[in-house]
């Protein structure tokens, strides 16, 4: 059986090892705590940044909804006016719909009415070539033009889809 020396009397080797470890490791103390506090500070800032980004996003979505709603309401009003006018004419003159389409320039009369339906669609965010962050806003339009040709005694209608893409600059945080 091996008998180990007692460890209750610190000798030269104990002093050397303790001094060595203290000299080496005491210089490293405090680093972990500082790194943790720094991480917490950054996370706190990041959270605040996320909140303001979310707020800005909600605000732009609200604006888009307001604009889209206004555009839809306007389009609906116009459509109603046109329908009423058209129904009046129909009941007065008995206008029939054309069997074929005729190019606008061949019509001998001017435009009887024109309705534009439009809406704005959020196309998401994009980074432009110059690194500017933008929100893509697609404006989709349906332009409906009606005219009456007295020689043919016919009402013509043309529907024209239009799409415009716009970029709204996003404020980076």
């Amino acid at each position, binding site marked *: 059986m091996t008998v180990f020396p007692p460890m209750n009397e610190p000798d030269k080797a104990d002093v050397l*090892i303790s*001094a060595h470890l203290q000299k080496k*490791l005491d210089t490293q103390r405090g*680093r972990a705590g500082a790194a943790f*506090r720094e991480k917490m500070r950054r996370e706190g800032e990041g959270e605040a940044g996320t909140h303001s980004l979310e707020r800005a996003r909600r605000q732009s979505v609200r604006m888009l909804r307001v604009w889209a709603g206004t555009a839809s309401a306007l389009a609906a009003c116009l459509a109603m006016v046109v329908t009423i006018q058209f129904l009046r004419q129909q009941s007065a003159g008995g206008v029939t719909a054309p069997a074929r389409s005729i190019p606008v320039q061949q019509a001998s009369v001017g435009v009887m009415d024109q309705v534009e339906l439009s809406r704005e669609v959020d196309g998401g965010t994009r980074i432009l070539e110059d690194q500017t962050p933008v929100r893509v806003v697609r404006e989709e339009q349906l332009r409906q033009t009606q005219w009456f040709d007295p020689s043919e005694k016919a009402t013509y209608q043309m529907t024209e889809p239009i799409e415009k893409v716009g970029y709204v600059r996003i404020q980076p945080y």
Partner: protein
Amino acid sequence: MAELVQDLVSRARRRDDQAADAFAALIERYERSALAVAYALLGDSDRAGDAVQDAFLRAWQELPRLQEESRFGGWLLQIVRNAAIDQRRRKKVMVTEFPDVASDDPDPAMATVERERESQVQAALEKLDETTRMAVTLRYYEGMSAKEIGELLEMSPPAVDMRLSRARAMLREKLADLAEPMSSGSRAEGVK
């Protein structure tokens, strides 16, 4: 002490306004043990500091997944060991230290002796196996008892004592020719 640690762990796990303060207190409590273990595995104080820093940040992330709050110490030191192993895998940046000829040291000869002594102590520690070296650094740097070391390293206290006794005998032999350091603000009195 165990109750205090467990209370800090519970508070840190809640992830409320007080959680970060509780975890900072845990860092304060376990930093020396973590440094001792990392140094035992890496043999380089700067890299041990890096590993401990990484380990505490990992521990903060993983804390909600800790199963038994009472086993925080052992769990943390396992993370420290993994972080030290990761650190060991990374390529070490070689820094060659040249003696500062314009040093303010009043006795350059003594400084040279001190450096020589440091390298011999380091060489002697490196002769030990990893587990024993961890036990030795925890005992000599943190002044832990065999029971405390056993809890952290998942060993029985007699097994820790046996390793420490063997290590001490070997270190005494290796360091027999060395003079004591000038400033011996040591914790050797804690060695039993």
